[in-house]
């Protein structure tokens, strides 16, 4: 009997120890998700993630705050945008989506391609990441940058001043542009580059255009800091000659243009045409009116005249327009591209640089090319008469450039118009929102996000929506 007891004990020990061997327990590698993924899939994710935010919420708030759009009557989803009373929770998701999504994915590609000297991946990832960082710095002024994107190595990244971010980005872009793209280790990217399909010449042009945009952030603070670099860029004139877009959308729910998906479809009835832009286009008989907006329909589905609502008048005009059915709406579809740069935007950027640092004649040339390119982009009939001498859009320097840039940004890259307005004070026809909570002032920035406030003690103290960013006029 004693024997039996010992045998049993032995059995337990054997079972216990053998079953605890490593192979028995090594089942904790997630079978549902890969642990190693090639650059091509991560780059796509970074590019699409950038487009998703730039062409979604940032396009929307840009559209409201640069008076392309206004809150419709009969609804109130974006009322706080019109009141300029956003809080820290607003746009938090976009901030998070960029940092933990696109920026981090692009960082993964940057780190890997730097290690393997794979310069095409290095260039694309660096440029798109720089574009995103620049956009964030324009909205928030101070952003996590030099200590960002390193995981637990720094769980509370500090916030860098926008100006330092701008300088660092310019330096980074220069480094990336200087790499030898014909070296033997350089991959051909192809389809996974959803913007230029791996065309490195277009990426180089993207880099130059982005640099010019960043240089022009200095016009109010240190206008001559990059003067020679600007002039060199203008001389080389290797800027984007096509729009930089993402078009890989399908007309199916959750596969469409992000602005259309959320703002036109899911939360329909809210985004109406702004009276500010509608009136400009109407008064000038601008053919782009019917390209930018969809007119309301009557009972027989016949289009009525285009009509916009004043900023913040969604309550006051309730009796005039009961719902959005009585107002014009943005002409954006599920397949509309997301624009990082439109060709007209590039033209106006060059025009502004020429106006400030080059020749007035070239500025005028690019100004008129901008208008032409804008008509093409909207597929509207060209009307050169509009910028003829004495006509409504006759070239009169910076105000003309920025005002036309503003019109050309509608439904495309409205955030840039919002930045331009605060940087240059143009266009000059903006109206004060009827429900403004900051009086006659205009918003200058977004509020530091709630999630950062909660988890990162280095988040700067709250700054009101009307506090200017570093480059503002």
């Amino acid at each position: 009997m004693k024997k039996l007891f010992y045998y049993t004990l032995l059995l337990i020990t054997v079972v216990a120890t053998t079953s605890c061997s490593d192979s028995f327990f090594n089942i904790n590698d997630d079978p549902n998700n890969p642990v190693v993924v090639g650059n091509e899939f991560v780059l796509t994710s970074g590019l699409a993630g950038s487009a998703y935010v730039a062409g979604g919420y940032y396009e929307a708030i840009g559209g409201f705050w640069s008076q392309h759009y206004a809150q419709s009557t009969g609804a109130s989803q974006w009322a706080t945008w019109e009141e300029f009373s956003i809080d820290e929770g607003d746009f938090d998701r976009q901030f998070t989506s960029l940092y933990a999504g696109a920026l981090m994915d692009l960082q993964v590609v940057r780190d890997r391609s730097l290690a393997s000297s794979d310069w095409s991946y290095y260039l694309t990832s660096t440029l798109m990441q720089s574009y995103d960082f620049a956009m964030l710095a324009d909205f928030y002024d101070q952003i996590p940058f030099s200590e960002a994107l390193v995981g637990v190595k720094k769980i509370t990244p500090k916030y860098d001043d926008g100006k330092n971010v701008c300088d660092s980005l310019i330096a980074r872009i220069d480094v990336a542009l200087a790499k030898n793209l014909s070296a033997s280790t350089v991959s051909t990217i192809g389809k996974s580059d959803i913007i230029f399909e791996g065309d490195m010449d277009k990426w180089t042009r993207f880099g130059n255009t982005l640099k010019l945009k960043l240089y022009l952030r200095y016009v109010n603070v240190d206008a001559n800091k990059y003067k020679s670099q600007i002039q060199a860029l203008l001389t080389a004139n290797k800027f984007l000659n096509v729009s930089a877009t993402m078009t890989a959308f399908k007309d199916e729910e959750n596969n469409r243009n992000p602005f259309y998906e959320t703002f036109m479809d899911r939360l329909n009835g809210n985004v109406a045409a702004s009276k500010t832009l509608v009136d400009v286009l109407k008064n000038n008989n601008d053919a782009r009116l019917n390209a930018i907006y969809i007119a309301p329909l009557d009972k027989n589905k016949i289009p009525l005249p285009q009509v916009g609502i004043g900023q913040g008048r969604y309550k006051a005009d309730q009796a005039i327009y009961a719902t959005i059915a009585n107002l014009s709406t943005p002409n954006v579809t599920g397949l509309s591209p997301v624009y990082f740069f439109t060709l007209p935007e590039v033209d106006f950027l060059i025009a502004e640089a020429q106006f400030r640092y080059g020749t007035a004649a070239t500025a005028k040339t690019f100004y008129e090319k901008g208008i032409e390119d804008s008509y093409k982009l909207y597929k509207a009939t060209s009307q050169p008469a509009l910028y003829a001498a004495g006509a409504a859009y006759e070239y009169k320097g910076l105000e003309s450039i920025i005002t036309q840039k503003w019109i050309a940004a509608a439904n495309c890259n409205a955030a840039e118009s919002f930045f331009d307005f605060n940087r240059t004070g143009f266009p000059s026809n903006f109206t004060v929102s009827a429900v403004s909570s900051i009086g006659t002032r205009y918003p200058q920035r977004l509020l530091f996000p709630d999630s950062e406030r909660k988890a990162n003690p280095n988040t700067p103290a709250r700054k009101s929506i009307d506090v200017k960013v570093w480059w503002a006029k």
Partner: protein
Amino acid sequence: MFFEISIYERSIFNFKYKFMSMKKISLLLAFLVFIGLQVVLAQTRDISGTVTSADDGTSIPGASVVVKGTTLGTITNMDGKFTLKVPPTAKVLVVTFVGMTSSEVAITGLNNYEVVLKAKTVSVDEVIVTAMGIKRSEKSLGYSAAKVSNEDINSTGNSSMMNSLQGKIAGVNVSSASGAPGASSRVVLRGVSSLGGSNQPLYVIDGVPINNSMAGSSTAINGGLDFGNRANDINPEDIQEMTVLKGGSGSALYGSRAANGVIIITTKKGAASRKGNAKIEFSHSTTMENPLRLPDFQNEFGQGWYDGTLAANLEENGSWGAKFDGKNRIWGHEVDNQQKYKPYVALKDNVRDFFETGLTNNTTASVSNGTERSTFFLSYGNVNADGIMPGNSDSYKRNTISLRGSSKFGEKINVSGSINYIRKDSRFVPTGQEQSVMDAIWQTPRDISIVDQKDYKDKFNNVDNYYTVFAQNPYYVLNEHGNKFRDNRIYGNISVDYTILPWMTATYRVGTDVSNATLKSWRAITLSNRASYNDEVGRVSESSYSTTEITSDFLLNMTKKINDFNFGLVLGQSVNQRESRNQAAEVIGLSLPGFYDLSNSASTPTVLGYISKRRLVGAYATVDLSWKQMLFANFSGRNDWSSTLAAKNRSFFYPSASVSFLFSELLKDKMKDIISYGKIRLGISQTGNDAGVYLVNSIYPQTVLSDGYRNLNFPLAGPINGFSLGNRLGNDNLKSELTSEKEIGADVRFFQNRLGVDFSYYDRTTTDLIWNVTLPSSTGYTSQTMNLGKVTNKGIELMVTVVPVKTKDLQWKLSWNFAKNNNLLVELTPGLDQIDLGAGTSTVGFVARPGMPIGLFEGLVAQTTPDGKVVVNSSGLPVSSPERQILGAAQYKYTMGGNSSITWKGLTFLASVDVRQGGLMYSRTAEMMYFTGNGSQTAYNDRQPFIIPNSVQNVGTSTAPVYVENTVPIAGGDGNMNLFYNQTYSAGKFGKLSLLDRSFVKLRELSLSYHLPKSLLAKTPISSADISVIGRNLFLWTPKSNTFVDPESTTFGDERGLGADYGEYGATPTTRSLGFSLRLTL
């Protein structure tokens, strides 16, 4: 007898009874004194007498009456009478009966003797099923183990095993998610100690753990589905008894899965009927349900939002319109040049009228038989419930079949096993927003009838012309959208006991729990001609969920008695594997209307597959020592190996020890009649707890981009796929949580168990909490699952039982339990001052902070000046302070339960009350009541303009404020009054408005049953019959501030872990049920 007098004199709880007893005893005393004076000498003579019970005075048949020191004796007849020839030398009679204390009676000259036997203290040898199915004497336990009997569970025919525990045991909190049939329940023992896990106890049936997971998308804020958690699948009628092990000392042997306590379920086993035939039992209950609590509505103002034109207001989904005037007014849309009109008056019951009476039928039949050597038990149970929503869109059908048996092979081997099959068919009305029934109900203006829109195809009520464009006709949603959930589940076990030696038994037990569930849900194509916010392109999704759990246990049980010492040793090994698999496909945008199949779409389906698998191995030993059945000690240790932890931290060990001292054994007989039972227990234990699966490595999931409303899913057009570095950073240092607990308690019963007090104090500390910590996204990640911080739970539990009345015909039992738990998040990893608990809305967050209890509500508050004045804007509305603030905590301050049972002859009246005090909850219903102006609170001041008392305006800037007294009233007419109550704007009353006091008192159960007298059944085959009138959740009392919901509602079930404490997000109102039940035994 004399002791008894002293007992009753000290009895403080029933004067009436004391009086009766005194009278009886005095008479008896006088009688005894009288006979003591008689001295009669005689030869062998006949003496006779009657043996009766002290408890109820009934005669005791079959009692043994023996002359002390001889074999002379007899037993009492059916009337409790005896006669016996005794020799002259006989001095003393010994009278004994099973279950009664034996009595010695001096033989005197008398010929007739009245012998009264007292019942033995019944519970002294109560056997409790403890960890791993080991049966132990209750007195030997050094920890709190609460037992719940079959009767306690089934007294009111509750089809939910978990809900039947409500209010019955101190320190056990059970909350039902909603009033939907088959909704999930959440059980928390002794407070929450884990941040990440569900905090739910482990359920063990006949020694084998079962799966308590949920199927469905209970985590979704919108379109949430709740098909119940799986512990509720068990038919309560199959349960013989349940033991709740709240503390670590009791549950440590179950290993890391028992860190939140264990509920041990022992099922009914086969037994023969009284006549030796197979025993057949039948029970049935039918209950009807209606909403327990609906919000208090205002009945003064009708449809409207802004004070604009009437036409604009006629589309509105709220009651911010004009005051009721009783005049006829048009309403709704103009259709075909027609428009309806009705008197402009409040319809007080428009919401209540919407709901139908729910009906639940719950039937179980079982047959069983048994001999010394083998038993079997077979039961069939059926629950058929249709909830309070109109039609059959909320229903729950459950069929359960159980077969259990045991058999002995030779003298040494005993084999037992069980197999259970469960089939569940449910339909559930989704919670939250979007195509939501409850949202449409709460939004309905006070003057609009909901039931009148039942014909949703009518031209005025259809999708195009439903009066508001902001919601969908609820009847349309109920009838055109839908879901079907079906679950097939089998669980069971086989156990073999081999008696190796008389003192050594080996047990091998293997159990499995397999379920396969499918869910199909659909939404009809819903496109409105008007600018509708509810347009829906139609969608179909099909999901399947399968889970498999296998547990194998080997135990060697040894016991040895040496003199006054008993030794016990258990050695054991346990292997557990849990697997789950989920596949889902969805198409959005349907081609053909009314046809719900994945093929019915031109769009690309989204598909999802998820597998998870984990293993846990444990080896353990436990040693029991006892001395003279008075002093008991237990030491145990367990080592676990878990697959979910980092390889280097895979193995973890935790010991426990407990002592129980039965001090009443030392008492003299005299004292023993006062203190019939007294035990002190002491326990100290540790329990480890492993992590979730797949948290050690970083991953690259397929990219999904979302803004909270819609997504950009991959693959993109092209087609182009993408993978994104996961937002959760892997952690290769992940180790187990460790809970250490000290427990001290006493169980003392007085006056022959007429009064019992059971008290426990525990102090539990959990360190290395596993939690998916939010990282600032600027790190490139949003979270990492890590070990952080420390939580303590300290509390007391008190259970008092009293039997104030116990006579032959009348018995009254009362019990009262009280529990208070102080929960504290003591510390977090340095650098973290707050963690987000993953629930919460944009207006009210749910977080944990060190130095405070877990589960804090956080939201915006009104900005105030340094001297406390409210800052308002130019419209007179309060503006929000820049920072969110803690608005309160979710946890109860204390909980209580009271149970009363009165039996008079065949009638039994049961009542149970559940009391919970303190804590806050979020209520979407309350938020909606303010938002829509339907809540009674919104009629404040007759909606006349008023100035916020003590308010100021800032005429300076935000950085250099200059405050002046505010003279701007909140305007009634222009809509600002609704801004004041509407927290979606950052002005007004803010998040706190939707937080309610969680306190309540609920009349949980009420039943009146009649046990039919045997005489009535004599000529029938029925040996026992009970009929009852039953009620559950009949009344609810809440603090005045909560005029909205039953605070027990928790939309998020248990899958969200702590999120369940957040509150309700448009849950179906909980119900009150009333019905009858019938119980027959053949």
